[in-house]
């Protein structure tokens, strides 16, 4: 039994005096309506970007890695920067859907579906980079450990790059299962109110024959809770393992023990920024202001200022350790290659500092947290800053080796490197536009579950409960 009571002091999570049916209507409306012009324009731009990306990748596969400006010693450039950036973005979705579920944060219900979708699409984009960075992409299956005719020659289980293979593929699979198991009941809702045969048929297939039986719901609840419990350490492990790609090496600037927590905080930071970018658009375009409220936006901005500050502390700790270790290579990397503004890549370090550490501090002010323009603008700034962070970590550590004779020439990307990155944007937004059109962007069943505790109309009626005597309250609540 759960008490249908929540303090009136808490902001409602669903505005308006909604019934269960109204919730269905509101959320399913974009699926049943014809897409707007804006949707088509956005979709075509995304597909165009995706096609450009496909062509860029085609050139890379045909002519080899030489299509990119990677050199000696910068063997990892835009590709691995983009990989880490996309994986990081994915993390917010799992944080919202899993960690906030375990922490019983009610506001997650409004944004979890779209955030999980974002996770899946971001991980799909991320996966492209290490795969195509292999060069001979047709041999990508060599990373899988299976009894083969080459010995059998096994993969190196002690290598962080192999841990990455396991971590990213597990992360993708588990996120997909978590997302889809939550979608099944909502697909059933869409199916049962479908008005064309094709819709009935397709949503009928997608909903797996869901009926809403009590026993099924009981198992569904158990499944969601355990998947959330599994995803929570999983999401932490994934970015920890990504940071091991760097931290277990002996390159000055990479060889630090602070990397795992620093990477995880950064991932949540950039992921929440991407969720904000998407949510500000989704709530406006689909008229979801009642479900994705200013309270939701504010809560996410609080996470951004917290994680942004954690990342800031990590930057300063690194600088301090660069001096305190008295290791001249560490000192050179941190104090010359990065922090010195007029060093070749100093601009990227200070761009990162400005975007990630200084600018999010604006969210200490409530007015700014609840301002949509500021939120949207900052969400873009943060993601630019987090891209700079990965670029700084990778390129400024690689471009000057121990021997001045092997210092590399200045690295800037070719159009095909940029095209590959643009292509993943195309992939991400193409998927997201299709998701927004054909999938319920808000978890219908979960909103209905919290409606009578956190809906505005129901909360207003709770004023009476606050004045009730304890015995009356208990008596009334205990009848079922």
């Amino acid at each position, binding site marked *: *039994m*759960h008490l249908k009571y929540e303090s009136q002091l808490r902001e409602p999570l669903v505005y308006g005096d909604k019934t*269960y*049916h109204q919730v*269905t209507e509101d959320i399913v409306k*974009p699926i*049943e*309506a014809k897409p*707007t012009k804006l949707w088509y324009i956005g979709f075509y731009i995304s597909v165009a970007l995706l096609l450009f990306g496909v062509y860029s990748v085609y050139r890379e596969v045909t002519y080899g890695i030489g299509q990119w400006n990677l050199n000696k010693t910068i063997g990892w450039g835009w590709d691995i920067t983009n990989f880490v950036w996309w994986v990081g973005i994915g993390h917010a979705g799992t944080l919202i859907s899993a960690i906030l579920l375990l922490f019983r944060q009610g506001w997650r219900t409004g944004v979890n579906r779209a955030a999980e979708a974002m996770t899946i699409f971001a991980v799909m984009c991320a996966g492209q980079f290490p795969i195509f960075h292999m060069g001979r992409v047709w041999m990508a299956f060599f990373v899988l*450990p299976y009894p083969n005719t080459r*010995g059998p020659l*096994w993969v190196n*289980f*002690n290598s962080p790059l192999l*841990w990455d293979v*396991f*971590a990213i593929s*597990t992360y993708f*699979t*588990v996120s997909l*299962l*978590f997302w889809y*198991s939550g979608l099944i009941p909502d697909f*059933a809702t869409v*199916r*049962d*109110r*479908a*008005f064309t045969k094709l819709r009935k*048929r397709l949503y009928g*297939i*997608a909903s*797996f*024959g*869901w*009926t*809403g*039986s*009590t*026993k*099924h*719901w*009981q*198992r569904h*609840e*158990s*499944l969601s809770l*355990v*998947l959330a419990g*599994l*995803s929570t*350490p*999983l999401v932490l*492990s994934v970015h920890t*393992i990504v940071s091991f790609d760097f931290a277990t090496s002996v390159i000055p600037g990479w060889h630090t023990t602070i990397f795992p927590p620093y990477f995880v905080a950064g991932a949540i930071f950039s992921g929440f920024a991407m969720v904000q970018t998407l949510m500000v658009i989704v709530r406006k375009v689909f*008229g979801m202001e009642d479900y994705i409220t200013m309270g939701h936006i504010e809560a996410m901005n609080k996470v951004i200022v917290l994680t942004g500050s954690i990342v800031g502390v990590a930057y300063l700790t690194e600088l301090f350790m660069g001096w305190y270790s008295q290791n001249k290579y560490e000192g050179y990397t941190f104090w010359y290659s990065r922090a010195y503004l007029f060093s070749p890549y100093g601009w990227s370090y200070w761009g990162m500092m400005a975007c990630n550490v200084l600018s999010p501090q604006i969210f200490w002010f409530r007015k700014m947290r609840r301002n949509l323009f500021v939120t949207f603008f900052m969400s873009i700034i943060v993601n630019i800053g987090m891209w700079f962070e990965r670029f700084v970590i990778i390129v400024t550590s690689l471009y000057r080796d121990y021997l001045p004779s092997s210092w590399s020439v200045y690295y800037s990307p070719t159009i095909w490197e940029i095209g590959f990155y643009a292509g993943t944007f195309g992939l991400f937004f193409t998927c997201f536009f299709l998701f927004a059109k054909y999938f319920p962007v808000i978890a219908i*069943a979960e909103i*209905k579950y919290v409606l009578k505790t956190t809906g505005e109309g129901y909360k207003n009626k709770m004023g009476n409960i606050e004045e009730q005597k304890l015995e009356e309250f208990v008596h009334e609540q205990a*009848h*079922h």
Partner: protein
Amino acid sequence: MAKKKFVVGCFDDEAVLFPAVKKVRTSGYKIHDVYTPFAVHGLDHALGLRETSLHTAGFIYGITGTTTALSCISWIFTRDWPLNIGGKPHFALPAWVPIMFELTVLFAAVGMVLTFCYLCQLAPFVKKHHFHPRATDDLFVMVIECTDKTNTDDLKAFLTSNGAVETDVQVAEDGWWLGRYDKDEMPFENKEIVAA
């Protein structure tokens, strides 16, 4: 599968549903199931359903993953092909922790979802009888299985007196079969949709 006769009562509020479930059960009727648009907490207990053991299955799948990873990697690196990596020990347990952990999570998640689908008989192309199309929208649909002695009119009146907003009698199969949904009734068929 054999067809059975059911009396269906629809409720529009879970606060009305709970006392009704209690009354129907104490009156000796057999509730086939209650279909709800979302997970109503406590309804499983009110119906006398036992707790699910799905999480136990998840634990077993999880440790299967752990042992699979540990046994495979240790066999490969100490027996099948002991690779010399900088003179470090062949049995390098700490370096295997990440993969052991990932396989634990992977096995548990995949196993649980498959078990969930098997137990609930959910799969693409599966079709089941729906007692009310609004059961996934806003109605709580209580379905009572009839015996030879059940007086359906009495039962319908009993449900109405306990707050049911709609009642009817249906003869239906209670299992699942492979089928499509496009021949079902479409209560929303003639709706005019205004672009969002």
